[in-house]
């Protein structure tokens, strides 16, 4: 399984901040799944972090990985 953590507005839209998904899955495929399930995410340019390393390319997320979904914050 892959442990997923969502931050900020993403957690509000998805309505949970931690959950698990089946491994393996690629970043782009999981992003597509998320956007299809939660269309409100389309407005937010969030990035993936796999095992605490930000990933911009499409990578396979392997079993036992930790995936974090990080949105930009603007408040100050």
């Amino acid at each position: 399984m892959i442990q997923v953590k969502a931050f900020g507005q993403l957690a509000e839209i998805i309505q949970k901040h931690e959950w698990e998904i089946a491994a393996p899955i690629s970043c782009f495929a999981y992003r597509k799944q998320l956007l299809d399930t939660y269309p409100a995410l389309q407005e937010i340019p969030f990035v993936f972090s796999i095992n605490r390393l930000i990933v911009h390319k499409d990578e396979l997320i392997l079993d036992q990985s930790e995936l974090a979904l990080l949105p930009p914050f603007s408040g100050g």
Partner: protein
Amino acid sequence: MNYQLYQRQLLLPDFGLVAQKKLLEAKVLVVGAGGLGCPAILYLAAAGVGNIGIADYDQIEESNLHRQILFQASDISKGKAETACHKIKLAYPQINVIEHVVRIDEWNAANILADYSLVIDCTDNFATRYVLDDACKAQNKVLVYGSVSRYEGQVAVFNLADKDGNSSCYRDIFPEIPNEAAIQNCAEAGVIGVLTGIIGCLQANEVIKIITGLGTPLANKILSYHSLHNSFYETQIVKAETTDKPNQTADTLALLRDDLNVLDQSILQLLAKRKNLVRTIGKEKKKLNLDVVQAQQWEKTIQNRIFEAQQLDLDTDFIKAIFDRIHQASINEQEKHDHGN
């Protein structure tokens, strides 16, 4: 230097007079005297950061007072930069404060930043954040970033090399400026003063570490903090230069094919690993004077693979054919090695 004033921090291990002198000589620009800026300015001035520029063009409103702790009820409708400078002069007269009553934009940023050695991003909008990110990158100036969203905050240090010599900027995380309207800000989403206080203090702490050389700054990392769960989450930043742009309108089939490609590549990598292992086994067999082909051993192995394939709901003929072919390739590899030596 007033030793009595800084006596308690001078006592700290590794701090001392040298660190204090570095703070007094530092020139720091705080952009935004709001929820993040107020605590950051206050603590930096208190710690003895000698020159503090404060940039803000806004006026104080009543709804600011719960988090913008430099201001009081009688300050409402006064300018933020002017009032912040005035408060710091009263509290810490030895500190040189410089007010910049201006909205920092792409035209004036280079000039304003030029006088400072370090910039703190305490703004409340993406437009100014990206201006600061670009200007600091162009001048190779350390930028200590902080931002909040409801009960959460982020802190990072840009344009400062980590122990591996890597540095990054905000655009390395989010290359394009987000749609301002889609992302919550404090005015719409709400914010609690303690959270901006924590994030502003984390920024001030990074500034003190960077100036004095103490500890490990958040270089090339972004830290997320959740005030309701008391959790910190640190992630390393990887430059976005090699970004593959996800095509969000791509059809499902194309994405599934992408997945297939990635899986196929994994299979190839595993086969390459297997080949290396087979070679090592070949050498061991030679040392022990064993034949390359150990028929009984293979029979046992293939039975195991077929059993495992059944468990995974894979076609056993298909798996047997693949492993027979792999086995043949392994024999060829070991015989090649055998004859080669």
